[in-house]
């Protein structure tokens, strides 16, 4: 019973904060609400007997991604970071479609037969490590390559000078010289 209450509480936190993420006018606030959602998710992981995941979630997401996002917002901020209100028609359409999708999904979930829970032993970090580095070693290595590629790509993209800026002053201000058009490895 206590787990029910705990789950309900965590779910409520996740959903409410998620709603704030998508509704906040201020981007910084949205990012911070995202942090709350992610922490809530970490709590959910803990409840689901996945403490290692919870730890990783807090460390990489809340620690890394959210920080990155904050930087992203700060770097691209303009005129105080206030956002123009979304167009109302798109707003309504989005609401209708999102709700409709949820209804359909909920229908599907409730109509489907739920598989009986298997009382599985809790996966320890040790087992996880073995799975990660034995069974899925190739995927793991491929992932490391992907990350490398992403880093290189991000650096390249971020350093790139666009040859035809719409508003030349900002572009000029953002880049030190005009001669670095070519990609720096």
């Amino acid at each position, binding site marked *: 019973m206590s787990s029910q209450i705990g789950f309900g509480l965590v779910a409520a936190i996740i959903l409410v904060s998620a709603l704030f993420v998508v509704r906040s006018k201020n981007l910084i606030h949205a990012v911070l609400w995202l942090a709350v959602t992610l922490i809530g998710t970490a709590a959910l992981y803990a409840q689901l007997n996945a403490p290692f995941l919870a730890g990783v979630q807090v460390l990489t997401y809340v620690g890394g991604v959210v920080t990155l996002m904050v930087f992203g917002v700060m770097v691209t901020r303009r005129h105080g970071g206030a956002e123009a209100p979304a167009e109302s028609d*798109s707003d309504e*359409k*989005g609401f209708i*479609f*999102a709700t*409709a*999708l949820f209804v*359909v*999904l909920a*229908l*599907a979930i409730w*109509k489907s037969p739920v598989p009986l829970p298997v009382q599985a032993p809790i996966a320890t970090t040790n087992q996880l490590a073995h799975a990660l580095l034995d069974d899925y070693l190739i995927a793991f290595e491929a992932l490391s390559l992907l990350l490398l590629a992403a880093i290189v790509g991000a650096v390249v993209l971020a350093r790139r000078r666009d040859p035809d800026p719409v508003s030349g002053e900002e572009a000029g201000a953002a880049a030190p010289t005009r001669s670095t058009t070519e990609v720096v490895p």
Partner: protein
Amino acid sequence: MTPVTLALVATFAPAVAALLLLIVFPLRHKGAPAAWICLLGSVVSLGAALKLLVDRLGGAGDTRVTAPWIMENGRAMAEMGVLIDGVSLPMLVIVGVVALCVQLFSVAYMHDEAPRAFGRYFTLHALFLFSMNVVVISPNLLQLFAGWELVGLTSYLLIGFYFAKPSAAKAAVKAFWMTKLADMGFLFGLLVLYVFTGGFEWTSQPTTLVATWVTALLFVAVIGKSAQFPLHIWLPDAMEGPTPVSALLHAATMVAAGVFLVVRADPLFALAPGTREVMLWIGSVTALFAACLALVQSDIKKVLAYSTASQLGYMVAALGAGNAFAGFFHLGTHAFFKALLFLAAGSVIHAVHSNSLEDMGGLRKKLPLTTVAFGIGALSLAGFPGFAGFFSKDLVLTSLEGKGNWIPWTMLMGSAFLTAFYMGRVLIKAFGGELSEKSAHAHEGGPAMTGPLVILAIPALASGFLGGWIGTQMHHAHELHFLALTPVVASSMSLIGLTAAWFVFRNGGKAPFAGTLERLDAFSLVDKTWAAGYQVGLLGISGIAGWIDRYLVDGLMNFGAWSTLEGGESARRLQTGRVRDYALMVVAGVVVLALIGVLR
């Protein structure tokens, strides 16, 4: 050698010569060797034909051998082969003799040509002889058609021999178009025959209706090829070709192929009295009409050309009267004397360097041999008693007795008079009187030129006496009663015509009605009608078709492309280019798909 081998040799010897000249082009380009090769081919061909003739005289019978040519459903739809009988054998010999004489004559006549043109000329001659022999030995109508078209081709190329001259080019194309137009009749006739009998044999026995259709369609081709009214207009123009060509193709052999066709297909024509009726009238009209026009021509070759059309009219009329033998006999004698006339005319033209009768005169003093030859030919053509033309023409006229209320008979009698009259005119104008300016330096050509004249003069004189033999070969009782009505009237027509010519033209006078006829000739209504048909009918319709295709049919296709582009422009507005809208659409799609999955 078997008769088949001999016939094949007769046919293919010139083909080998032509092929050799076509492929080994240095021979052709050098000129003289081409003439020798061509002559060799003709000699071999004629030799084989004469051997066949000798065998025939020794009692050999008919030979017919065929091989499948076009296959259809495992059987032969069409065959090619050889048929040697009483019709093809005399024709083979006639063609061989005339061709050889003409080629020999050409060696002298054409020797001023550039070597390449000289070589081309003889190559075409070899090709012609081959094609003509294909016609002659054909055992069925399809092969006859094949050869028929091939002689048309060589005729086209030889008329256009002086292709640098626009008039020659025009005449060549005109000849080909006119005959090709008529040949559609041949093709349709073949198709009808094929549909109803499953083959192309003239011995097949279709119903009268079918036979009438077939023969009528075949006769259309005859009108074109044998220059009958109203498709005769190409023949005078065809005189643009070298004179020996006119002698061989457009007088003696090729134009006679039409008559030959009817003689061959006589069993079919016998089943179609309606067609014969038409032939009778068209032949008579052509004979008279062309004879009138021959009266006022100033070009010696055109006189002969119109006289050819007129004589072909005689043959067609005889065939229309149902006497294939008379037509064929006249074909044979005409081949000799008309070739002789043309070669003699060529000799004159060679000496005078002009075609015009006005430039000639008194040539008997300078060209005695030519004068004699021309005289023999002219008298033969005029049907002077004893000459070859007399026998065959009388036979034609006899066969017309009583047909069509005697009207065709009368018309042909009139033509006989006119023939004698205009030939007398030519004789007097060219050879009689005082020497003209251009004739003053004329002289006879070498033996290559005079030789053929001598050779051809013999049959032009005497071939009339061969009628009996040909008649037996064609299973036709040939009896000519010289004291019957027709021979007497015909010979008097000939004599009156010649005498009248003497009195009228002796002092440079003009023929009665010459003015009217000249205006008729100059106005050339038939010619103009055809020209209008070509300009307005064919070119007009084709212009319209071309416009429709470019601007309507293709326009419609372009309109399709245009609408696609325009439609794309309109549909483009659906694409906002905003990521959010695309995402929305993705979600909408997912919702719909999921809904389908859930509700199923």
